[in-house]
């Protein structure tokens, strides 16, 4: 379960993390891309934080859609349309909601990852966001299916996300700019998979605070 306050908290914590890890994400992108992923994400979430007060009293779908729309026009790199679509799709799946059940949360995550796949036309194993996002969502589903709480599920999800990040070091990039490097992308950690892992870290922190 997730209240609107928790959703807002998630956005704020994620935004903080993007500011905090700006240099790390940028350095990762420097190695296999154009060295802007941290700049992009922190710029995008700074804009989100400016937009948030105007919508925080609206329903969850409006909040998520605003986040998505803001990212799309401010991130500046591939992460903009990708995370932007993810938040917009998640928003569309929570229409009118003031609170999300576990099923709603799972649906929202499914829509988010579906949005990223629609937008980026990538599959798992191409050294992208998907390589941490898909295992994390799978972990949530498995945990909830086993009857665990969302708080426990998100611990597993974060773990799975970071494992996914580690996995990106072992594979070749076939989507995005890192693909220009071909074989040489192997050995490097994907910046987008990393920024996604921070999203699950943020969600996990919110859930642990709420203790459910």
């Amino acid at each position, binding site marked *: 379960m997730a209240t609107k306050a928790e959703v807002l908290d998630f956005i704020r914590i994620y935004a903080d993390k993007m500011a905090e890890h700006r240099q790390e994400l940028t350095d990762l992108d420097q190695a296999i891309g154009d060295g802007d992923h941290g700049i992009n994400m922190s710029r995008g979430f700074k804009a989100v934080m400016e937009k948030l007060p105007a919508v925080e009293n609206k329903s969850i779908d409006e909040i998520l859609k605003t986040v998505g729309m803001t990212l799309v026009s401010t991130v500046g790199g591939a992460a903009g349309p990708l995370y*932007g679509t993810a938040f917009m799709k998640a928003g569309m799946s929570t229409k009118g909601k003031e609170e999300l059940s576990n099923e709603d949360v799972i649906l929202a995550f499914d829509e988010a990852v579906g949005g990223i796949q629609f937008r980026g036309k990538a599959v798992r194993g191409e050294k992208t966001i998907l390589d941490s996002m898909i295992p994390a969502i799978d972990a949530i589903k498995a945990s909830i299916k086993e009857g665990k709480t969302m708080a426990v599920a998100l611990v597993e999800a974060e773990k799975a996300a970071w494992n996914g990040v580690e996995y990106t070091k072992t594979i070749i990039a076939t989507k995005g700019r890192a693909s220009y490097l071909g074989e040489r992308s192997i050995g490097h950690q994907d910046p987008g998979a990393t920024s996604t892992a921070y999203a699950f870290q943020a969600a996990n922190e919110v859930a642990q605070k709420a203790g459910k």
Partner: protein
Amino acid sequence: MVGIVVVSHSQKIAEGTVELAKQMAADVKISAAGGLEDGSIGTDVSRILAGIEAVQTGDGVVILVDLGSAVMSSEMAIEMLSDGSNVKIVDAPIVEGTIFGAVQASIGASLEEVINVLAGTKSYKKF
């Protein structure tokens, strides 16, 4: 007249390309959607959207992109239009394609014709 939008991560590239195209086809409907609002490098869906709207006369619009997120951002911009059915992203070299496309558009070629010419740009030999 078919409109053209030049979507580059670089404002300079987009603007310079529009200048070269206008040299060859002064009256062409063309707009530069380059970089972010503050001039830094990247692509911005709102700028692309504004670019499309500025050159859409009803005859359709072709979008030329540089690389990476320019494609995804352009796709999003098209989806945001109330009717994006005659707005097409073309896979052609951004500078060369824009110039050839501008020449075609300015002589009144249809959207389909412009797209066809652009499809041929890749095989054009510079020397």
